[in-house]
């Protein structure tokens, strides 16, 4: 440290132990008395810079959800382009919890991944709330009891999201025709430089490839060529089929017969919402798989319902 001064001890602690031996870090009383007179003048604080005011000071009362998004979309609170961010953003909206959104990157996150919530400024800098604490945050904010932990049956169905995730990762990150979309999603928001963009995009693809290989128990060095694509997409199709069947069994139209769409619905919507929005073209496999699942467009109808529930205002604006 540049400065070797001890911080002035809190006044309350000083009389409490007057007999204790003065340590190196306690300031002698006369010096403390002198210090208390300084500074002689305290003026009002300096206002924050423009960029900070625009990006972080739009509201004194609302928390901010940091998500992958473009700055224009985030300003309007539009859906994120990242499955996990979209999941939590959708769930918060389903619970009618008000929040702002801010475009961000993993570097901003306390856990290294998005999303996270940042409560409004108080006298000190707020501590971020990681997504793992969102269910507790939602139950606090809505005065509802904490949702019960997932049952073993729910856990089993939760694992069906993995093949869907791998197929999604492969499509977006490792399929060349989707490279412009990947760039639009994750690169354009942070840099306009071609060189830096290319470096960041190759880092993203490498990380996605490593994640897919790891989940398939393949050697990380074997490269994306080692992935059995037919099998990858077949498993995704099978998972979507099972999810559609599960949904058909539900009397309420939401997963596990819930009255209101819950975390599981939001989690699946994170993928299905993005697939239907960006990958529902004739040549895209994933859009077709979602449409075919259940044979009767079960998932598409469910997707439409969530969209109305959570994103109704944007749907109407688009019309």
């Amino acid at each position: 440290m540049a400065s070797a001064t001890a911080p002035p001890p809190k006044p309350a602690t000083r009389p409490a132990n007057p007999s204790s031996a003065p340590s190196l870090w306690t300031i002698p009383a006369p010096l403390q008395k002198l210090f208390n007179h300084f500074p002689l003048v305290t003026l009002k604080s300096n206002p924050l810079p423009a960029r900070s005011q625009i990006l972080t000071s739009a509201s004194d009362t609302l928390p901010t959800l940091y998500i992958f998004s473009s700055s224009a979309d985030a300003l309007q609170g539009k859906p994120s382009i990242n499955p996990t961010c979209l999941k939590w953003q959708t769930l918060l909206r389903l619970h009618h919890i008000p929040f702002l959104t801010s475009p961000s990157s993993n570097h901003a996150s306390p856990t290294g991944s998005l999303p996270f919530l940042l409560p409004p400024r108080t006298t000190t800098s707020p501590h971020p709330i990681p997504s793992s604490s969102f269910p507790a945050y939602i139950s606090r904010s809505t005065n509802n009891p904490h949702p019960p932990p997932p049952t073993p049956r729910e856990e089993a169905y939760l694992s069906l999201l993995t093949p869907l995730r791998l197929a999604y990762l492969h499509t977006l990150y490792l399929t060349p025709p989707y490279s412009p979309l990947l760039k639009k999603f994750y690169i354009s928001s942070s840099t306009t430089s071609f060189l830096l963009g290319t470096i960041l995009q190759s880092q993203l693809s490498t990380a996605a490839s490593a994640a897919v290989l790891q989940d398939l128990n393949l050697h990380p060095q074997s490269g994306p060529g080692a992935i059995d694509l037919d099998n990858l997409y077949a498993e995704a199709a099978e998972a979507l089929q099972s999810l559609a069947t599960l949904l058909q069994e539900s009397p309420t139209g939401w997963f596990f017969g819930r009255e209101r769409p819950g975390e599981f619905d939001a989690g699946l919507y994170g993928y299905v919402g993005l697939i239907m929005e960006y990958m529902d073209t004739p040549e895209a496999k994933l859009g077709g798989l979602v449409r075919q699942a259940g044979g009767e467009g079960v998932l598409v109808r469910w997707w439409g319902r969530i969209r109305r529930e959570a994103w109704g205002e944007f749907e109407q604006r688009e019309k």
Partner: protein
Amino acid sequence: MGASLGSGSSSAASNANTATANQHPAYSANSNMLDGHLLTPASIDTIELHGANNVRRSLLDGIFKSLVEGPENATSTLGEALERVGAATRKLSRFDIFKEDGFGAFISEADRPDATPDRTWLNIALSVKEKSRLVLTAGTDVGNAEGSAYTNGVFRNIFGGAETLSINASAGTRTRSAYSVNLSTPVNGNPDVRLALDALRSTTQKPWASHEEHLTGGSLKLSWLSDSKATHTVMCNGVWRQLTALAPNASPTVRADAGDSLKCSIGHSYTLDRRDNPMLPQSGYLFKSISELAGWGPLNGDVAFAKTELESAGAVPIPFPGLQGKKSGISIGAGVRVGMLYPLAKGYNLAAPAYPSRINDRFQLGGPSDVRGFKVGGLGPHDGADTVGGDVFAAGSINLLLPIPRLGAESPLRIQLFANGGRLAALQDKSVNGENGQVLATEPKKVFDGVKSAIGELGNGLPSVAGGVGLVYAHPVARFELNFSLPLVLRRGEEGRKGLQVGVGVSLL
């Protein structure tokens, strides 16, 4: 590189006698004997250089050839001829590839068949000792509020043309890791003009703003020494900056700026140092300016601004009655620094909207080697505990240096009384306009008004000021200070430092 440009002794003809004795022992020893003959006509017949075994012939020709073949050689006097040899030798020493105490000269009369009695022809034999071509060092450093360990390799005169390749790796408490490679070469055989290519990768902790910054980049620099002994550098820079590893309680401002950005800039710096001793100035003045233009026109990148910083400092000795012309060692010094960052539109269209500055481009002010009596970055806008910087600043300091009674004026120790202060303000804009997807875009008119009002803010109320007393030790490479300071005027959120503060630096305010 600044040092190698600045340390060469004067080459102006009228300053021949200022050449330091240890640099040219043979020449100065001879000069006493030769004093009476300086006006006799003499020309140089040959020059031999011994000991420059690894230096390219063309580099030496560039320096010595004109001495023998130049038109003035035919008409010169002995004094002029010796001065020309002296100037060439000093030029040679500025390449920094020969040992300073290794220069020697031997002069003899040439045996020339066409010699006429009215002109003496000289054979000049110079000897030099080359500095070691490869220097590997490793060590630890404590300075500028951090401790570090480093390894450094310098390949001097690597291609025989006084090129220097320097490779450096270090790990420290604040600069967690840094790797740099620097290749520099004199241009056109002139030691006063150097071209340097740098590559850098570093990780630096910035606890005053709760983050780490990773830099990866390169630069091309051309430096030269002007006739007035001022150093100019023009540079072209490209840096990938990554703000990452945020502290749990990092402020929203820092969180909003986390991530990647590319800065491409061109810049110019100018230093005119006329102080008697940069570490402990007793007289003279310094003028320094740094200008940078980023993101404009073909530069591209993610940030665009014009940034300029001016610094001026000076000192005057105070005579003490009764010392009869001897230096008293008492001096008063003062320094002023101002800076401004002006956001610009990216590309060529200056009328297009500009983007307000980010934390890693804004100025910081305060710290033991800056505005004393404040924590590092202690002045200016703060978000919670984080110093977030500002777009315009002005700072000034005045200090009285007193010698320590029994050590006297020649000792590098001084007692210092100082008062310093400053203002750091940011461009304001509260409006959020989401049109055309450009959330942060600010119209040029608003940028101008914002900068204008930020400059106005510098004069709004008293500056933030601290004063104190301390001990200064001027080591040849850095200045150490131990100060007791108290903040006098503060703004809410600014972080003053009450009590002792240690400052280490090469350019203190």
